[in-house]
């Protein structure tokens, strides 16, 4: 299918540059309620995503050519009217006037581990085995049972080619394991709900995770409301991933992008501190890492054919470079780096246990209802789904209320744990301590 599309692109009038990405995917999905299957699904899909560039005179007049681009998706049933699809793309690309830019050329692509061979060969077995491990682990957990679980085991083949010689192929697997546990109290039940995304089944220690989340469900039964005020706050594990990665929409990722710099939306400058306050915590260093083995945002090459890299973005609080796709790299005159990839932070120097020390009150948050800092300003507010108040040696579970602040204002004073975690799209310290965060509670 890809070669048919490429042949048509080469011949089509008005196509001055192009990129074509063939995506072939198979998804095996298994849904369970309690001990029984709720549904089983198998989905196959195939498409070619085509980006067409057209150079033309600007609508406003002038002699310097401008460039427009447009995407169209070619599905198997579109092959009979492929010329029409490409004409539609050229028509749309001709409408828009942007400063000209190029495409990446052929590169050597690094080898990155992206696929779990067992997930490729026996997806249904993997899905059932994971649910079995979870059920078995919960059998040892007092007063806790499985409400529901969903497992998606996916394999994708992506082949990217462009008009400048890029030709790269990668095969990856993806695993989604979403579960809800219920803990029963004397007169009540509470739940803990979590979803894990990985590329490899072995990266989920199901018995350990089941134990941890069973404890969360039980603790939620006894949880009270936090106090109102400003307190030290520790955030760990999946809650930390939500706070700093935010499913790829982290202000750390967006502010360091050449695209937002070009759009005059990122205030950051290379060589300057990313903080407006004087750092008082651990030195803050950040890597954009597309080479992390089995990282969910890893890749030998990105969507337009740039090779994956591991790049220091922030070193000791200072922005070292913008990450850039080809277009915005050319606009800003910086090297193209490819897409951001996974967010990596170096291990800290403090033990997790020491981050929880102090007279208190201190709040340790293990789950938010939803935490996504504003991608541009960094402001955040998140309801506490479950946490613990540590006060004079006493530990009390809490839920409800919220924490609020600004991500950069809290990172500037953060202390990081030396224990690390790999959470799919994040590799780094398992926990962080912020000395002062506003808590809205009772």
């Amino acid at each position, binding site marked *: 299918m890809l070669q048919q599309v490429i042949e048509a692109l080469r011949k089509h009038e008005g196509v001055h540059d192009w990129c074509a990405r063939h995506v072939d995917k198979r998804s095996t999905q298994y849904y369970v309620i309690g001990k029984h299957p709720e549904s089983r699904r198998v989905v196959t*899909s195939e498409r070619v995503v085509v980006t067409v560039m057209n150079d033309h005179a600007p609508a406003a007049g002038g002699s310097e050519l401008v460039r427009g681009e447009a995407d169209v998706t070619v599905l198997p049933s579109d092959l009979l009217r492929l010329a029409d699809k490409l004409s539609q793309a050229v028509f749309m690309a001709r409408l828009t006037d942007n400063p000209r830019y190029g495409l990446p050329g052929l590169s050597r692509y690094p080898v990155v581990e992206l696929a779990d061979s067992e997930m490729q060969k026996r997806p249904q077995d993997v899905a059932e085995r994971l649910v079995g491990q979870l059920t078995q682990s919960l059998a040892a957990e007092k007063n806790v049972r499985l409400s529901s679980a969903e497992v998606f085991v996916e394999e994708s083949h992506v082949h990217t080619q462009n008009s400048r010689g890029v030709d790269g192929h990668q095969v990856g697997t993806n695993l989604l394991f979403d579960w809800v546990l219920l803990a029963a109290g004397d007169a009540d039940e509470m739940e803990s709900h979590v979803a894990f995304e990985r590329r490899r089944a072995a990266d989920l220690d199901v018995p350990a995770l089941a134990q941890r989340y069973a404890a969360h469900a039980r603790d939620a039964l006894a949880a009270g409301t936090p106090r109102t005020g400003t307190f030290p706050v520790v955030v760990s594990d999946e809650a930390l991933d939500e706070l700093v990665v935010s499913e790829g929409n982290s202000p750390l990722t967006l502010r360091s992008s050449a695209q937002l710099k070009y759009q005059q939306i990122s205030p950051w400058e290379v060589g300057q501190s990313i903080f407006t306050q004087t750092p008082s915590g651990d030195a803050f260093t950040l890597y954009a890492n597309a080479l992390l083995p089995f990282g969910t945002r890893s890749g030998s090459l990105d969507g337009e054919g740039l090779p994956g890299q591991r790049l220091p973005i922030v070193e000791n609080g200072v922005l070292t470079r913008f990450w850039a796709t080809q277009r915005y790299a050319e606009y800003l005159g910086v090297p193209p780096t490819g897409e951001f990839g996974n967010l990596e932070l170096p291990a800290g120097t403090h033990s997790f246990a020491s981050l929880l020390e102090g007279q208190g009150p201190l709040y340790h948050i293990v789950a938010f209802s939803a935490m996504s800092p504003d991608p541009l300003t960094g402001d955040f507010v998140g309801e506490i789904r479950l946490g613990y108040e540590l006060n004079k040696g006493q530990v009390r579970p809490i839920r409800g209320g919220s924490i609020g602040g600004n991500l950069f204002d809290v990172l500037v004073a953060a202390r990081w744990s030396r224990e690390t975690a790999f959470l799919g799209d994040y590799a780094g310290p398992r926990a962080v301590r912020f000395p002062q965060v506003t808590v809205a509670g009772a």
Partner: protein
Amino acid sequence: MDLQEIPPELSGPSVNLPALVSDMERRVPYAAALLCRNGGLQVQVRDREQSVTEIAPRQGLVLSAWNGAYFEEMASSDLSREHMFGLARRFMGAVQPRLRGAVRPRLRGAVRPRLCGAVRPVASDGGIDPGQAQRTHYATACVEDPTTLSAKEKLDLCLDLQARARKLNPRIVNVQVRYMETLESKAFVNRVRQLSQNVLRLRLSVMVFVSDGQQLQYDWLGKDATGGLEAVRLNDDDLRRVCESAVAMLSAKKVPPGMYDVICCPDVSGVIAHEAFGHGVELDIFLKDRARSEQYLGKPIASPLVDILDDPSYPGGHGTYFFDDEGQLSSPTYIIRHGVFERGLSDLYSAHSLRVPRSANGRRESFERKVYVRMSNTFFGRGKTPVSEMIESVERGVYLEHSSSGMEDPKGWGMQVTSQYGVEILNGKLTGRRFAPIGITGYVPDILQSVLAVGDDFKLSGGTCGKGHKEWVPVSSGGPHLKLKARLG
């Protein structure tokens, strides 16, 4: 494009659906087939950047089979006749029909007596009710049909809005205008029904970025609908309002945390309805024992002033459709009436398993995903109190504007809604002092019971809704202004 016909990409394959269903029902007691295609056009204009591009179409066939205990599905993007029948053959080769009721989830005692009786139960013990025979095509009604305009005209519309907004204030550093036009086409067939629909969704939004040299802030304004361009046009007043609001964000402070009297604009009211009592009454979570609302069925849960409805048939709503992904025709559902929890929302599986009447809330993100119980247009019913009177009645509080996100907690019944900003109310007047952003949290019954007044206005705002952190579908939420008590932080 003629909305009275499904697109050619689906019309050819759709002729095969009755035969596919018939073939599958030789092996299983109930089967259905759904063809779906979502796609459209997006135009975007910012300073120094323009784009006109296709919204990537997601198109495929879903074959569903009831095996006597649960639904199994096979789906594919390949709509060639040969592949469709080959898929069905492979699917039927893999399905394992089960003994009736072999592994059905247990019925919840609290649910069964209340919900049965009002409407005929959906199914007998052994089977799935295919509904009444019907063969109909439905299409969104438009006054100004955008599909008759060229992409160039839509780009010009955005360029004009961007240019007009850009010069309204010197602190503006960029303005993004985005136009999205999505056509959601579906053809559903079971043994008695052949339904098809074209639902045209539009969204036009302006996002204004401002800076005072020290900090960057922004605000946005958007209109959305199922319908024609007449429903989403933005005027100069709209542009001036969003620019002034973005500039005011530069002086916003953090709200001192605590309990407040608040007035929620319709946008925020709607997200409270959606998060507090929308997700919590999706009956698939009853099957999973995840719904605390189950204990309140038929009981008062909110102030008697409160009605909450979900209505996929609401004219022009962003979440509007004619039938759901399982062939159930749209109609309104009263979830809460006069403060009493009446009934939840269902898909075919939850309705069948719980022996309750179906509502048209079985929706899937695309052919690649399963059907879940999903909301459509979810809102508080209109009240009688003028908004000015509501504000005048607040001694010290906050007017909450512009929701940006929310999250459900159906078991713990916590609720989180984030408001882009709020404005202080002192002695019955808006002071202009702005707080941003604001998190609204609380225990759902406390919030719903604290409603002291319901406005005489009404507005819906569109967006997308996930189930947990995935499965995104278009919805709207809204209603009137509400006066209530909530914890802000």
